[in-house]
């Protein structure tokens, strides 16, 4: 009888432990993936966010959501996309710290920057 109670308690403790582990895993996930920090959306002839800050080594992906093609071109030559039609993407991994201003070479009024720390 005593042994079965012990096993039951152990079982509950194990389940609680798994739940706790799962919970902690769920809460720590966003810090590791940083999903919103690596996306830039091109919408209505503008880059959003206009200034994006990311850690060194981050891959940034631009998605063109306009009806009109755009490009993503670094002002100082660090990166340059091909023309992006609607829903097309361009990615670049920032290996060095610094500020990277860029623009759309088709619509040069569209400017933004990535700050790599």
């Amino acid at each position, binding site marked *: 009888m005593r042994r079965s109670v012990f096993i039951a308690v152990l079982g509950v403790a194990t389940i609680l432990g798994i739940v706790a582990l799962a919970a902690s895993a769920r809460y720590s996930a966003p810090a590791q993936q940083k999903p919103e920090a690596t996306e830039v959306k091109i919408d*209505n002839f503008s880059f959003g966010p206009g200034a994006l800050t990311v850690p060194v080594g981050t891959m940034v992906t631009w998605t063109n959501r306009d009806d009109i093609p755009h490009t993503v071109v670094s002002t100082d030559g660090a990166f340059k996309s091909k023309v992006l039609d609607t829903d097309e993407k361009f990615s670049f991994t920032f290996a060095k710290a610094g500020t990277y201003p860029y623009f759309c070479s088709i619509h*040069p009024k569209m400017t933004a920057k990535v700050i790599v720390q």
Partner: protein
Amino acid sequence: MVGKMKDELLHDHNHDGIDRRGFLKCMAWAGTGAFCVIRGGVLSSYSLSRMREMSPKEMASELSFVQISDSHMGFNKLANPDVAGTLKAAVEKINGLSVAPEFILHTGDISHLSKPEEFDTVDQILKDARAKDVFYVPGEHDVLNDDGKQFLERYGKGSKGAGWYSFDKKGVHFVGLVNVLNLKAGGLGTLGHEQLEWLEDDVKHLKHSTPIVVFAHIPLWSVYPEWGWGTEDSAQALSYLKKFGSVTVLNGHIHQTMQKVEGNVTFHTAASTAFPQPQPGKADSPGPMKVPAEQLRSVLGITDVNSVQGPHALAVVDSTLA
């Protein structure tokens, strides 16, 4: 900001007699039509519906040509899923003009994505036009990915630099300029030093009475810099044309008709044959404007230009595809 721009566009800065009302009279927004005659720098406008009342002398012309623009072949979004169909309608409109045009000027954005098959389709459709010669300047959509190499190979025969050139027809001097290459971050259209030097030299030896027609894709006047609708160094280009009595500047890019007179220069932008764009500052961005399908052709169009008798007279007529 929008209000400020409007004032800049509409007030008579140059004391040339074109006040806000006069400008509005001659500003043919997409969907309407205007017939503008310039004689000795004085501009009169008539609505298309009144053209029948005009005397044959008023309508007589020595040279007639048509401007089309922004065919954006390859565009297939909601604003116009059939840009080939509307370009064909433009050709029908050209073929139906009472005075057969001698040639066609295409002021750029022939293609949407600079794809060879897009250029091929436009070439094929324009073969059905009564006017056989077509003179092109590139839009920014025609020089994607290769800095205009393909455009030069297709259309740049006999041109200089990135594709600029001039030619003469019946006493009128035509100049095609390229202002869509080497665009700088935050900037507007650019002609560049080399092209400006060429232009200065090209017009140097012409008589002051020679009518000049300059055509380029991005407007050579400040339509709306916030949307990039202007050219950084256009003032220098225009300074070389000050000595001439009659200068007409024809542009595209903004997908709507607009006209302005500044001293000896008449600026005009043509409608697109593909899709309309919003009036300056009237939307969040200059993206394609969606209109009900049955209204689309009323906001697309062609521009018919006539050199009327006398050295100081060019008439510019916009008509829609409806």
